[in-house]
């Protein structure tokens, strides 16, 4: 014989089962049929998206196109000579570049030339003995594409061209750089 409490319990259990069946159906209905996270094919300056492409020149006139570096692990670092944390993290960037470049790691240090002193860039790279490519952003287009909010901003990009991590602000420590670089080198 059912007591009132038993009935309540049975009603609750039926409710749980109904909720769980609905939940399972919702999971199946909302499954991503493409088998891939939707953001991967769209360029945007956020982890999980394809890195927005750009073509920029170095002070010596050499041209770098981001998409042509596909297959390598990239760090796109947006910086300016007047920015103290940008200056502070340069030695660590250089050290990591020297240590990992043979494994396919490339640093693209994009100077925000449109809001910097263009004549200060080369002396700056000499002062810090930087050997990775320094690119000049003279129009603000790359800053807009990467929705620059603060300097420095660093974008760790995997070999597949997908942004793995975005770090706004700095300076980044060697340990942080090491963990992120080893992640994108995988």
């Amino acid at each position, binding site marked *: 014989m059912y007591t009132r409490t038993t009935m309540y*319990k049975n009603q*609750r*259990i039926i409710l*749980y089962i109904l*909720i*769980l069946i609905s*939940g*399972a159906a*919702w*999971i199946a*209905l*909302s*499954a*991503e*049929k*493409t*088998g*891939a*996270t*939707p*953001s991967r094919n*769209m*360029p*945007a*300056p*956020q*982890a*999980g*998206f394809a890195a927005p492409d750009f073509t920029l020149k170095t002070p010596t006139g050499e041209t770098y196109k981001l998409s042509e570096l596909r297959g390598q692990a990239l760090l796109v670092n947006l910086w300016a000579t007047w920015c103290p944390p940008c200056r502070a993290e340069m030695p660590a960037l250089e050290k990591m570049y020297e240590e990992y470049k043979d494994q396919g790691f490339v640093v693209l240090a994009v100077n925000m030339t449109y809001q910097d002193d263009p004549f200060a860039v080369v002396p700056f790279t000499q002062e810090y003995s930087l050997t990775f490519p320094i690119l000049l952003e003279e129009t603000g287009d790359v800053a807009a594409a990467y929705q620059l909010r603060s300097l420095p901003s660093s974008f760790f990009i995997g070999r597949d061209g997908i942004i793995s*991590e975005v*770090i706004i602000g700095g300076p*980044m*420590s*060697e*340990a*942080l750089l*090491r*963990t992120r670089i*080893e992640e994108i080198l995988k």
Partner: protein
Amino acid sequence: MLLIFAAAWIGLSLAEKRAERSAISKDNINNIIFYGLITFVIGGRISFILQNIPAFIKSSLGIISINPDMFDPLGAVTAAIIVMLVYGQRRGLLFWHTLDALTPFFAILTIGLGLSHLAAGTAFGKETKLVWGINLWNATRHPTQIYETLASFLTFSLLWFKRHDPRSGMLFLTFAALTAGSQLFIQAFRGDNTLILNDLRQEQVIAFAALAFIFILIEYRLKEKP
């Protein structure tokens, strides 16, 4: 981050009020949250270090670096839960009563988390043509951050009406069930899920498992005396 801190502060005030009803002193609630937050911060860094020991052996000064990105959220939460449990046990706090007292804190924190996602543009939705879509990351997307904030607010409102429930643990378990249920629903609109078994959203599967477990706990609590 500021939104989360503000939410934590409001949540703490509400938890203090709730604590009186659960016969737990304000000091104990303040302390358990304080120790939890401190352990959250330190535990997150320690867990990150433990997962990246070779990097820190080569650059040991990084251990004390102020980079907030060297942080493991899962490790942080685990460490905070352990310390809160140990504190509660040492002080002789009743487990379910304490969880009930902390529920307003958790509920307000989830509202703050949704707002912080909205401010940072993280936890973003997939593309949509719906009129309420928001322009984010170069596309019109489901405003999943707003969905989760509204769901958290709704959860908090429902808990408010349930706040006089005399059965210990039910307030917390209701919060947990509503949160897991809303995540199960909302995650379908996210654009950044991790996929498992080729096409299922991992976050939904976790929410589903959590919901089933919470139902078992609710039945277990209803069998017990208040």
